[in-house]
């Protein structure tokens, strides 16, 4: 069973890699920039999915970690002329360290203090982005951020950048998958099921939760820095409370505790508005409806939906065979 599952998921990874490699050549050019954004959101929602699905906690300020890194890397490379990779590294570290500062004390408390703590933190960061005009250029945004360049190569076309973003997403996916399957992943699932039982078994609940929270902020930081060096412009609007809700919705829709779900939710909710221009102004209503309806009717999200659909198909197929399979082949044989 387990070796079977191992094989199956290796095949899944290979298919994932193949889809990533093929997509830009199959889709119209316009979709490349949409897919880059989808890739950034996939990284964000994978990180948040680890926190929500495996540690049972919510961050309502994930856009702040995304934004901190985007602004840090943007400011360091633009105002202080740092090389881009150094700026990105600094941005990611800043997001991770900030998360540790917030998470370690908050996660010692039982209940959903982290949700409120991060929500408050998100609001503060958003206000700072707007008000610290000298550093962030305020509401009008920071312009002239250089494109990503490393090892003497500048990634200037969308296609090149697509591979940078989705390559990163793939690596982060494999990392998260391995983490979830490790001793640590089992500990996290134990915490999610019952904190008391987990701590009786000797799991340091607060420490594990804080680790996952910091990791999810690091994922957000990576996405943020990649975002800054893709659009070459950052403004506070991209990192508002609304953006945090967007990421939460992607995770919920995709299915908590499913990495595939996180990727699917992110891609789906990035591409969907492209098709439904009409809802542009009211997308917040759509997000609200998705949150409430998914939790009510499909708590495992798209991942659970896919699983159920597969289960139904498999059992339908099993019921048919072997008699019906034979009948089918007979029918085929009779056809001219």
């Amino acid at each position, binding site marked *: 069973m387990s070796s079977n599952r191992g094989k199956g998921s290796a095949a899944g990874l290979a298919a994932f890699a193949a889809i990533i490699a093929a997509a830009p050549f199959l889709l119209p050019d316009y979709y490349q920039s949409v897919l880059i954004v989808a890739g950034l959101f996939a990284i964000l929602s994978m990180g948040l999915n680890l926190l*929500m699905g495996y540690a*049972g*906690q*919510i961050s*309502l300020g994930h856009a702040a970690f995304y934004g901190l890194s985007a602004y840090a890397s943007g400011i360091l490379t633009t105002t202080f002329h740092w090389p881009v990779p150094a700026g990105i590294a600094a941005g990611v570290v800043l997001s991770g360290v900030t998360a540790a500062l*917030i998470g370690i*004390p*908050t*996660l*010692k*408390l*039982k*209940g*959903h*203090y982290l*949700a*409120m*703590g991060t*929500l*408050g*933190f998100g*609001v*503060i960061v958003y*206000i*700072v982005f*707007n*008000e610290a005009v000298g550093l962030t250029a305020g509401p009008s945004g920071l312009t002239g951020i250089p494109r990503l360049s490393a090892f003497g190569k500048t990634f200037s076309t969308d296609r090149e950048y697509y591979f940078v973003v989705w390559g990163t997403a793939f690596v982060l996916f494999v990392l998260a998958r391995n983490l979830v399957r490790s001793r640590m992943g089992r500990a996290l699932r134990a915490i999610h099921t019952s*904190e008391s039982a987990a*701590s009786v078994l000797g799991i340091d*609940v*607060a420490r594990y*939760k804080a680790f996952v929270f910091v990791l999810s902020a690091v994922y957000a930081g990576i996405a943020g820095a990649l975002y800054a060096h893709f659009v070459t412009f950052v403004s506070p609007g991209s990192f508002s*409370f609304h953006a945090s*809700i967007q990421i*939460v919705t992607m995770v*919920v829709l995709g299915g*908590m505790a499913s990495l595939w779900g996180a990727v699917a939710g992110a891609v789906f909710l990035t591409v969907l508005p492209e098709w439904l221009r009409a809802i542009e102004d*009211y997308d*917040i*209503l759509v*997000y*609200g*409806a*998705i*949150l*409430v309806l998914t*939790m*009510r009717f499909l*708590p495992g999200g798209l991942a659970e939906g896919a699983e159920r659909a597969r289960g139904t198909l498999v059992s339908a197929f099993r019921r048919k065979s072997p008699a019906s399979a034979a009948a089918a082949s007979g029918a085929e044989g009779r056809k001219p």
Partner: protein
Amino acid sequence: MPFSSFLQFIVSGVTVGATYGLTALGFTMIFNTTGIINFAQGEFVMLGGMLAVFSMKWGGLPLPVAVPLSVLLVTAMGVGVDRLTIRPMRGKPAVSLVIVTIGVSILLRGGAMLIFGKDTHALPPFSEGAAIPLGGASLLPQSIWVVGITLAVLVAMKVFFDRTITGKAMLACACDRKAASLMGINVDVMVTVSFAFSALVGALGGVILAPITLTAYDVGILLGLKGFAACILGGLGNPFGAVAGGLIIGVLESLGAGFLSSGYKDAIAFVILLALLFLRPSGLFGKASADRV
């Protein structure tokens, strides 16, 4: 800084803080019967103000009718929120319930934007009359309404929880739901009542604040968060602490805006919130220790 402006900041801080306190009372009530932090609490506050504004604007109702009507409508919505979204989730993990209340809050906010638009609106003050001079500061008549109504709600709650069987039943649910239900208390009804009450006090807060600070579809997020900060400051679950916490946050915010920077005014409540979560999560008036993992 002359004393008169200091006094002015205190006066306006107390006024705004009283409505944070009402929001905090709403959080407290739902938290006490269900253990849920209702992320839609701020939207009840927003709806209180907006529905009053629009029942005057579109319905042509006079203020004394529009205000109670709006509060009643929001109370009914509180019941609806419980029945339609919270009750079907009974027994689901806390994280799911939190997500549902977040979903409800953005649905309410989005709905308000769709119906009422994105403009900012003002409600006329409850009584005519010029500002009353007070030691160099001036006191708006509306401030007296705000503080008076907040105190009245607090006293009414105290009487309700101490003297009525329903109030005691709600407290019993807070102590131990299973035991309460074994004692013949209908926990489902108590939860619905707590949603109705918290929507009611939230809407009251919104409607008395609207003449002072203006209202719009998106004021709920910040008001809700500040109400929650007030709850934590006063000790989550303690109604008097909640109101006191609201007053403290209102005053600090007003002083901070006056002495430090008005741009960062909204950040003050959250800095207090984060600091409290780090240093004293049980709140100023809470038990010595909150539940720690």
